[in-house]
C-alpha cells in the first residue's frame, strides 16, 4: 500500500473512572487511516467506537481519560499536543461528523453563518469570500438552491439536509482526515442512501483519509476500503473489506456477518442475536470467550494478540488459519 498514512493510532487506551469501577472502554487499540482510503470501524453498541473517535479528536471529558498510547496525525502525536495547537487542527485539518446532526448546530443562527464561521475560524477571508465558499459547500453536498438555503435556520432543514450541512462544515477547510461517527444513524433508509451516495462522490474528489464508524456492517461494506472490527474495547479483526467481510477469520466477525439482515434469499425462521459488548471490561483473556463456540482453555486466561492470518489480514484469535477454516460452521 503506497498511500501515505494520515492517522496512526498506537495502543490507544481510554478509560472511564466511575463510582462503579474503571471502565476500560478502549483498551489497546491500534490502526491507521491512509490518504484516499476509507477505513470502516465496526462494532456493536457499547464496543467503544465513539470513544475511539472522541479520543482521536481529544474530546474526551472526565471521568474519561486517555491513559495510554499515541495518536500520530501527519507525524505529530495528538496526545501530547497542547490544546491551542489542537484547536487549530479541529475543523480544518481534521473534520468530524457526528450522528444526530441537530444537536451539533446552533438553532439560533442560520446555516450560512455557521458555515462561514467554520471557514473564517481557520483562514483569513472576507465575509463575501466565506459566503461564496459556503454556497459552494452546500452545493457540493447536494443541497439544491444553496444560495437561498444559506439563509435557513437548522430547523428548516430536514434531517437528511442537516446531516449534509454538518458534512459541509466538516469538509469546509479541505481536511486531510474526515471522521464520520454513524452519520446516518437517525436517518430513514432512503435518506441514508442519499447521504452515502453523496459521500461517495465526495470521496472521489478529495484525497482525505476517511474513518467511518458504524454498527451497520452492510452499509460499510458498500463504502469502506478496509475494515476493522471492534469488540469490548479491542480490535479483533482487521484487513481489506473484501477479506474481512468475505472471509472472516475471527468467530465474532463470522457471527456478526451472519447476523446481518438480508433482503435477498430465503426468509429466516429466526434471526441471529449477537452478544452485547457492554460490561465485558473486567474479563481476563479473550473478550469473546463466553460466546465463542470454538473456545479453548487458553482463551480464558490469555488475551490473543492480533496475528497476521494472511497478507494484510489480522485477527486476534488463537485459532490458526488452518484450524479456523476447519472450524467454519
Amino acid at each position: 500500500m503506497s498511500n501515505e498514512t494520515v492517522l496512526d493510532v498506537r495502543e490507544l487506551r481510554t478509560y472511564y473512572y466511575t463510582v462503579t469501577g474503571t471502565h476500560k472502554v478502549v483498551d489497546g487499540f491500534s490502526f491507521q487511516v491512509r490518504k484516499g482510503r476509507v477505513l470502516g470501524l465496526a462494532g456493536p453498541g457499547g464496543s467503544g467506537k465513539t470513544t475511539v473517535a472522541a479520543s482521536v479528536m481529544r474530546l474526551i471529558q472526565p471521568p474519561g481519560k486517555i491513559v495510554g498510547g499515541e495518536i500520530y496525525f501527519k507525524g505529530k502525536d495528538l496526545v501530547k499536543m497542547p490544546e491551542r495547537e489542537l484547536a487549530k487542527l479541529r475543523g480544518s485539518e481534521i473534520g468530524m461528523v457526528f450522528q444526530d446532526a441537530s444537536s451539533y448546530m446552533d438553532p439560533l443562527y442560520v446555516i450560512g453563518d455557521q458555515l462561514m464561521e467554520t471557514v473564517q475560524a481557520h483562514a483569513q477571508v472576507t465575509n463575501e469570500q466565506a459566503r461564496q465558499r459556503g454556497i459552494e459547500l452546500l452545493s457540493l453536498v447536494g443541497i439544491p438552491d444553496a444560495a437561498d438555503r444559506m439563509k435557513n435556520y437548522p430547523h428548516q432543514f430536514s434531517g437528511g439536509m442537516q446531516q449534509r450541512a454538518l458534512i459541509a462544515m466538516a469538509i469546509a477547510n479541505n481536511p486531510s482526515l474526515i471522521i464520520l461517527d454513524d452519520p446516518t444513524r437517525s436517518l430513514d433508509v432512503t435518506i441514508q442512501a442519499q447521504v452515502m451516495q453523496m459521500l461517495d462522490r465526495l470521496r472521489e474528489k478529495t484525497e482525505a483519509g476517511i474513518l467511518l464508524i458504524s454498527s451497520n456492517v452492510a452499509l460499510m461494506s458498500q463504502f469502506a476500503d478496509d475494515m476493522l472490527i471492534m469488540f469490548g474495547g479491542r480490535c479483533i479483526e482487521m484487513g481489506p473489506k473484501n477479506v474481512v467481510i468475505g472471509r472472516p477469520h475471527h468467530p465474532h466477525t463470522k457471527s456478526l456477518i451472519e447476523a446481518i439482515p438480508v433482503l435477498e434469499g430465503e426468509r429466516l425462521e429466526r434471526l441471529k442475536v449477537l452478544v452485547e459488548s457492554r460490561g465485558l471490561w473486567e474479563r481476563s483473556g479473550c473478550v469473546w470467550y463466553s460466546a465463542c463456540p470454538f473456545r479453548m482453555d487458553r482463551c480464558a486466561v490469555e488475551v490473543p494478540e492480533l496475528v497476521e492470518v494472511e497478507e494484510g489480514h489480522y485477527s486476534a484469535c488463537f485459532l490458526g488459519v488452518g484450524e479456523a477454516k476447519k472450524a467454519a460452521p
Partner: protein
Amino acid sequence: MTNNETPILEIVDAHKYYDLKTLTAFGRVREKVKAVRGVSLKLVQGEALGLVGESGCGKSTLARLIVKLETPHQGTVFFRGQDVFKMSPKETKETHRRIQLIFQNPFSSLSPAMTIGEHVADALTIHNIVRGKAAIEERAKQLLDTVGIGREVYGNYPSLSSAGDLQLANIARALATNPDILISDEGISVLDASEQAKILNLLKDLQDELKLTYIIITHDLSVVRHICDRLVVMYLGKVMEIGDNASVFSAPINPYTKALIESVPSVAKGLRDIRMTAMKGEVPSPIHLPPGCTFAPRCDLATDACRQTEPELIEVMPGRSTACHHWEQVTRMHATS
C-alpha cells in the same frame, strides 16, 4: 393465510389532515398537513402486516387512527365488524384493551418515576385482567419473563435499562391486556441490529402461541423481511403498493417500492464493490403536494400523465395492488436487471 370471515380490522377510505397556522407575509395563514389521503386496508386475524414508508408518509397517523388517538375527517375504522368511531365509552375501552400500540421512543413511553414492574402492573389493573396485589405482581413478572428481560427488572426504573430492553418492557406491558392486535410504530427500527433480532424473534414466537395479529410500522424494509406476511407501502398519505412479502421483495410493481428496496445497504452488493444508489430529490412537504402522482418528481418512469393525474390504487393481480400508471414497466425493469 386464507380467511373468508370478516377481517379483524378494516380501514375504509381514511382521511386525516392537521391544521397549521403559519405566519407569512400575508399574516396568519391556515395550511393543511395532509397526513392520510384515502387509505383503505383489510387486516386478517393472525397475519403480520408490514406498513412501510419514509418519515412523513402517514403511517404513524394511520396507527393513531386505528387506536382512536385521532379522529379521521373522512372514512372510518372497523374492528371486528364494528365502527370504532361510533362506539360507546365502554366499547372503546374494550377496543383499547384489544389493540395495543408500542411507540417509537422506548424512553418517552415509560415514566421515569415508575418502575418497569409498575408499568406492566398498571396495564393489568386498568383493564381488570387480574385482581389482587400479589396476583398482579406475579402476572407482571411472568410477562417480563415471557418477553425475555426477566422478572429481576421488576423493581428497576427505566433509566437502568437499554433501549432494547425498554422496548421489551413495552411489549410486556402491551401483552398484559391479552390483546388481539399489536401495533409497533417504528419501535423496532430505532434499535441496534441485535436488539432488533431479539424482538423480531420474540414477536414470531408469540404470534403462534398467543394468536396475535401484528402491524409492524417501519421505514426499514429489513425489519419486515423475516416477520411480515404481507406488505403495505405508503408515500405521502397514500398506499403505493400492497402484496405478499415474497412478491413485493422479488418483483415490486411500484417504482417507489423498488427504490425503497434498493436503498437498503447490502453485503452482497458490497462484496461486488457496488456503490450505494439513491432516489433523487427530497420528500415533498405534505402541505404542498406536487400535482398528479406525488412520487413523480423523484420517479425515473414519470411522464406527463403522471404529473396530471394521481393514479388510483388498483388490484392488478390477485392479492397485489399498486398505484402507478406504468407499473408494468417496473416489472420489465426486473427482467433486465
